[in-house]
């Protein structure tokens, strides 16, 4: 194993507006090593990898590849230099065949005419090499299962000659055997001197396959260690860091004894058997790693996706129901501020007034189906004042507002509609500090009015500041709920990772992971 770094990043920094997502990160990857990148959500792993693979440009800092300056402006440039990335989302074209996807950038042709036989022969060789001999080269990619699609995606990257390979959560959709096959290939590439950057939440995998790990936290470099020197427990500690809980003292709870929302054994796709309860005036946080099913859980409660079993009980529906549409949920006193406000929270091209009143037109702003324009204007301008939405007029289109002000409009819609239980999905994602503070105050005043709030957030600090209790989801299940008096960042991190460390075992990392490594080295 060569000790000179193959790829080196020097003080990489990335800002988005005022927000710094990556700060002075220096990382080195050697030829012939598998280097794992660890960190909680939003720690900057994906940002770092996107910079390395040319998908985004750094705000500051430089990179070197095999001793030469390396500053890719596009993914194509990075690939030309031998840096490949396999992203979390699939980048395949579903309607094209497996073979066409595998060789999309270099389809064998003669004068523009596809050479079908050659295409399929080449694809066959690649697939066989990756143990995918049961996958037909002519099958449309969309006809494959997600696991096979993921394998094809990985094979596409591995088939190209590369010096640095980045894998972002490659095993999320893979079965155990498929993962094993993948690890086999990665070890093969390591032998050939490829430098591999490997991102995964599955600490057992990381322990089994990586040579070194680098930990990022809040966009900053924490440490780089030899994997063999760490136990799973140590990794969790490094990822979570120390938990500053400065805001705790100022927190005022408004929780009452009266039940507002009770969810019993809700199951919906990825969400499995989730039970929770929220009292009036209570603020319940839900956290967990990306992909743990938090958003899906809220959607199932709200009827945006229809749950297959379980039930939801509200004051208006004490006997328990499973909502089959959001309109039923809203009628029963639920509100949901969605995570992706541009996609399903707001009518971007419409005005602030239209957005604010959208959910309550029949209820508050019409008589015999006729809109009451004056009332609409006065209520929406009250909302603009109350929430400090920065705009010229309420007739301005929402698209012209900043992210924070857009989010306030999305929330205003539900304040105007009113509800017993408010579900917030990442209420402060991508918005500035001032707007964030305003939303926190709003959460508090809602709970003071006896509303129940459920807040999904990746930002633990946010939940520490704003919640009475925090539930942790992992792999579609709600694994543990912590109260203000007994929570800590470390406990929550541990719970977040609990499903990804060998099932059933407590985290005696040494034995579990040690055994696994032994098994593989044989």
């Amino acid at each position: 194993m060569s000790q000179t770094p193959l790829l080196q990043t020097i003080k990489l920094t990335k800002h988005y507006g005022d927000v710094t997502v990556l700060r002075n990160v220096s990382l080195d990857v050697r030829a012939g090593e598998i280097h794992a990148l660890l960190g909680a959500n939003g720690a900057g792993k994906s940002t770092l990898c996107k910079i390395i693979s040319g998908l985004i440009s750094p705000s500051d800092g430089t990179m070197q590849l095999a001793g030469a300056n390396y500053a890719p402006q596009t993914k194509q440039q990075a690939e030309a230099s031998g840096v490949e990335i396999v992203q979390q989302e699939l980048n395949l074209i579903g309607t094209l065949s497996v073979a066409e996807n595998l060789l999309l950038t270099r389809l064998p042709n003669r004068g523009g005419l596809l050479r079908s036989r050659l295409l399929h022969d080449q694809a066959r060789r690649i697939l066989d090499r990756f143990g995918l001999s049961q996958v037909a080269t002519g099958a449309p990619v969309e006809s494959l299962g997600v696991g096979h699609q993921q394998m094809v995606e990985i094979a596409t990257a591995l088939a190209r000659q590369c010096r640095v390979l980045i894998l972002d959560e490659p095993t999320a959709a893979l079965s155990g055997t498929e993962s094993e096959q993948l690890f086999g290939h990665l070890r093969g590439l390591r032998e050939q001197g490829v430098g591999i950057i490997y991102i995964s939440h599955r600490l057992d995998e990381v322990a089994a396959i990586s040579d070194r790990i680098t930990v990022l936290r809040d966009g900053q470099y924490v440490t780089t260690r030899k994997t063999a020197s760490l136990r799973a427990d140590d990794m969790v500690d490094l990822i979570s860091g120390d938990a500053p809980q400065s805001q705790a003292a100022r927190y005022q709870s408004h929780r009452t004894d009266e039940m507002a929302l009770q969810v019993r054994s809700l199951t919906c796709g990825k969400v499995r058997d989730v039970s929770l309860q929220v009292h009036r005036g209570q603020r319940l946080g839900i956290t967990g790693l990306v992909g743990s099913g938090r958003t899906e859980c809220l959607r199932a409660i709200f009827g945006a996706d229809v749950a297959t079993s379980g039930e939801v009980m509200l004051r208006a529906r004490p006997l328990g129901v499973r909502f089959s549409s959001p309109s039923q949920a809203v009628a029963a006193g639920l509100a949901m501020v969605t995570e992706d406000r541009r996609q399903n929270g707001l009518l971007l091209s419409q005005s602030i007034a239209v957005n604010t009143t959208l959910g309550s037109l029949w209820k508050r702003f019409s008589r015999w189906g006729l809109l009451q324009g004056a009332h609409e204007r006065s209520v929406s301008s009250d909302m603009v004042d109350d929430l400090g939405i920065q705009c010229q007029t309420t007739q301005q289109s929402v698209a012209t507002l900043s992210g924070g002000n857009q989010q306030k409009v999305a929330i205003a819609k539900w304040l105007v509609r009113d509800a017993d239980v408010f579900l917030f999905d990442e209420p402060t994602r991508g918005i500035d500090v001032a707007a964030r503070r305003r939303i926190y105050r709003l959460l508090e005043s809602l709970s003071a009015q006896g509303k129940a709030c459920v807040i999904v957030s990746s930002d633990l600090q946010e939940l520490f500041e704003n919640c009475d209790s925090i539930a942790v989801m992992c792999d579609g299940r709600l694994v543990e709920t912590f109260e203000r008096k007994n929570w800590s960042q470390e406990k929550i991190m541990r719970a977040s990772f609990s499903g990804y460390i060998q099932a059933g075992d407590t985290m005696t990392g040494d034995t579990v992971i040690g055994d696994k490594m032994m098994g593989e080295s044989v």
Partner: protein
Amino acid sequence: MNQSKWFQSVVQYGGLLLVLLLLVIVFSVSSNNFFQVSTLVTIANQIPDLTFLAVGMTLVLIVRGIDLSVGSLLALSSAVLGVLMVNQGWSIGSALVAAMLVAGLCGTINGLISVGLGIPSFIVTLGMLEIARGATKVVTDSQSVYIGSKVEWFGQPLGSVPFSPAFVVAVLAVIMGQFILTKTVFGRYCVAIGTNVEAVRMSGIRSAPYAIAVFGISGLMCGLAGLAQTSRLSTVDPNGAIGIELAAIAACVIGGTSLMGGRGSVVSSFIGVLIIQVLQTGLAQVGVSDANKQIITGTVIVVAVLLDALRIRWGKPT
């Protein structure tokens, strides 16, 4: 407040009215016969059928649908009207109600299938275009049906006023349509659905009934358009109104209605109808050949849409 509203209207309709004015000036200069009351009367009496269709089409486009079946539904309702009046001796009133019901039902079926089952309305209404045309031929036995004076009065200028009842009803439909679009919950939901149907759903609103109703309204408008055309021609023509759906779409688009949904105005579509008709009448008077008329009309459509796209692009801050 009132003044700024006036100002807004001028901004909204100003560009279109300017185009219309320019056309009128160009034709008045190049033809001695154009700037006359008789031309105005001709145009006013040509446009009711297209106007009715454009009112319905505007709403359909706003909910991000499209209705290609309007020409065939116009012909079908005309056929129903004629056959009931001539063969069954119905009065014009009851025959009109029956014709509108048939067309409204067909439109509702368009809505139920496209909205309810999530099939693109382009395909569903294309199917209805064929079905309704075939039904028209079945109803009329593929023969024209002459009705005569019992319908003609509807399409002819009233004695003292140069406008026909059809024109007056069409203008009323435009006013109604614009009122529904801007002043009712229904209209607001239509705009919302066309802008982002998923956001509407997540706001706790069931959008399907509204979107389906819009297709039904488009059908009802076809019924009125059927009467307007029949009264103008005195006759049911089973092969009439072929391709008029494209003129209706063109009128809406010239008026600034977006094919991507969420944006449009019935009044603007009406101005679009006027522009198309002024162009047709004016070009005919100037003596332009049919072939060149088509080329010029097509160019005007594309240029109008282009200008609108640029207006929006410049209007956006980012």
